[in-house]
């Protein structure tokens, strides 16, 4: 039995269905990231777990106990908000202790708890300040401290890093990861940033329009997206999704991509998924991640199925650690990830290596993956 179980959860505002039947579960000590574009219902889902919003149908269980109708304060959870939601009229210490105060914890014990948390988060020197006197990162720490001090069964994070600048965001991400590793608490984390999702999660739920599109480990989500949306949403730069058709070359299938003013590229598929046979001669979406589309020298040595094709390079983007090259296939800009020192000039024609082991195919009609 999982630690957090969500069964058939639905949420309606009047006639509008915000959550359309969510089923998720998370093991004890797991780190679940809810990710998706804004308006997908991820924050609503988090709020229903917190008890800040009621649910219309379904059940939420924590540690085997149904918490559907419990008041937020009785669910044994803690939550960190996007804006941190620090009480402006209280000091840092007051903020951290407020929950305990509400529960009638004696002052002495509260002080002890505050000191402990302050030590862990290194905010001891801030305890007497008001939130308005803190920097963004400090506020973030205080918000986490307020959550930590409760030692809850479940931590909820609502886009906690989105108000920080880029560098601080990375630092805090690591901090959260470390926190998770050392305390072993169970965490549900909402973000629209797929890097956060990939780096932090033990489980990811990709959401869209109130539905879970895919639920699995980061690797599953990344490598085996179930549909076009997940494929497109996860990963940066995003997966190349190229309109193509399936041809056959006697021994097997090939994927054929149109090009402007050039011969179409045809790549032979060694280990095509079984479902592809139904699409012979029909259009499909060919998905290949930028890192599976490289210069031949940088290609993965032990990949079993690598195909080469000459491509016309339109733009080069040196990014330091890598160089991205943009070409045009099937009428779409396609990004290839090359080694940093790849010697390629824009406007030239260069052979690129397609790692077809990592390629995926989608049915344009259903947008589902062809397996």
């Amino acid at each position: 039995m999982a630690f957090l179980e969500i069964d058939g959860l639905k949420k309606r505002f009047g006639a509008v269905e915000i959550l359309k039947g969510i089923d998720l579960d998370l093991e004890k000590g797991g780190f679940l990231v809810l990710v998706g574009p804004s308006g997908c219902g991820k924050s609503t889902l988090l709020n229903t777990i917190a008890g800040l919003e009621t649910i219309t149908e379904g059940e939420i269980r924590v540690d085997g106990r149904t918490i559907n109708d419990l008041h937020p304060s009785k669910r044994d959870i803690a939550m960190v908000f996007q804006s941190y939601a620090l009480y402006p009229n209280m000091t840092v210490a007051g903020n951290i202790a407020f929950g305990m105060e509400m529960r009638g914890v004696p002052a002495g014990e509260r002080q002890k708890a505050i000191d402990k948390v302050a030590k862990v988060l290194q905010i001891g020197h801030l305890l007497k300040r008001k939130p308005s006197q803190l920097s963004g990162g400090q506020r973030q720490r205080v918000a986490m401290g307020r959550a930590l001090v409760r030692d809850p069964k479940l931590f909820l994070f609502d886009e906690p890093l989105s108000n920080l600048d880029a560098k601080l965001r990375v630092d805090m991400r690591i901090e959260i990861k470390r926190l998770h590793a050392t305390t072993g608490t169970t965490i549900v984390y909402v973000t629209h940033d797929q890097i956060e999702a990939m780096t932090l999660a033990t489980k990811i739920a990709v959401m869209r329009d109130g539905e879970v599109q895919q639920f699995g480990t980061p690797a599953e989500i990344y490598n085996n997206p179930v549909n076009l949306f997940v494929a497109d949403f996860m990963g940066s730069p995003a997966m190349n999704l190229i309109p193509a058709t399936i041809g056959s070359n006697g021994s097997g299938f090939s994927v054929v991509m149109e090009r402007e003013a050039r011969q179409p590229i045809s790549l032979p598929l060694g280990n095509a998924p079984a479902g592809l046979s139904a699409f012979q001669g029909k259009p499909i979406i060919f998905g290949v991640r930028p890192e599976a589309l490289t210069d031949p020298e940088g290609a993965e040595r032990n990949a079993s199925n690598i195909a080469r094709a000459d491509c016309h390079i339109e733009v080069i983007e040196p990014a330091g650690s890598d160089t991205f090259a943009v070409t045009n296939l099937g009428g779409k800009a396609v990004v290839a990830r090359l080694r940093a020192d790849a010697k390629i000039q824009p406007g030239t024609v260069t052979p690129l290596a397609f790692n077809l082991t990592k390629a995926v195919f989608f049915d344009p009609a259903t947008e589902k993956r062809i397996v």
Partner: protein
Amino acid sequence: MSAVATPARQSTGGISARTVNRIVIYGLLALFALFYLMPLFVMLVTSFKTMDEIQNGNMLALPQEPTFAPWIRAWSEVCSGLTCVGMKGYFWNSIKMVVPAVIISTLLGALNGYVLTKWRFRGATLVFGLMLFACFIPFQSVLLPMATILGSLGRFGVKLQNATGLTFGFGNPTVNLVFVHVVYGIGFTTLFFRNYYEAFPNELVKAAQIDGASFFQIFRRIMLPNSLPIIVVTVIYQFTNIWNDFLFASAYAGSGDVMPMTVALNNVVNTSTGVVEYNVNMAAAMIAALPTLLVYVLAGRYFVRGLMAGAVKG
């Protein structure tokens, strides 16, 4: 802060253009200050003049022989009806009515604003719209029906008194006035607080809920301590309106022992016959207006700040 750069900053003309500009601005500001001060000035100088000087002199002239006699008369001798104890006797009557009315209406407004923004329910907007529109009712048209209801409450008070020995304030004119001002004040106070709380982060309320704070604990510990600017605006607004009310006060609390300041002042100033002691009248008017003036002058700075903090939005 907007602080639109003064035109001079972009002009290339240098100091002279800038100086001219500043002179024009200060000149205009001073001119309008004169316009606003004029009635107060007339009242002030008149209150220090003798009657001779008033009848023979210029309205705007400074007093030739300043005298405090009118002020002393207004404070401790002037008559309202047959009672000649000066304005000082009515101060307490007004305070007794204004303070509870302001506190209750402000508190209710804050609670209503809190509910209407942080605990929204189906129809909350309609409820608010109805309460807001209520601000527009002309008070003259509620005078009589309200009197009828207050009368029944008073009779209920007599029954209570027979049963328990106490009226619990039913039928007491001061309590009645407090009630009336609260009823017709909550529209505005709710408007003020609702607009302010609309911009107040919801996440704070959510965090407090998770922290285990109850409905009222959130209000008392989180909302109220962060509402100072709007409390200032509301209190100033309510205080002046209630202090200055004449219609309800004269109709519901006209008798000498409970009469608020404005009714007494009206009796002093609005004499239908007899010699009019303008200097005493002006002094009495100044005395009656002193609390509200003081409130505006002392809290004026916070007033603008409070308006900034949300009262003026939508």
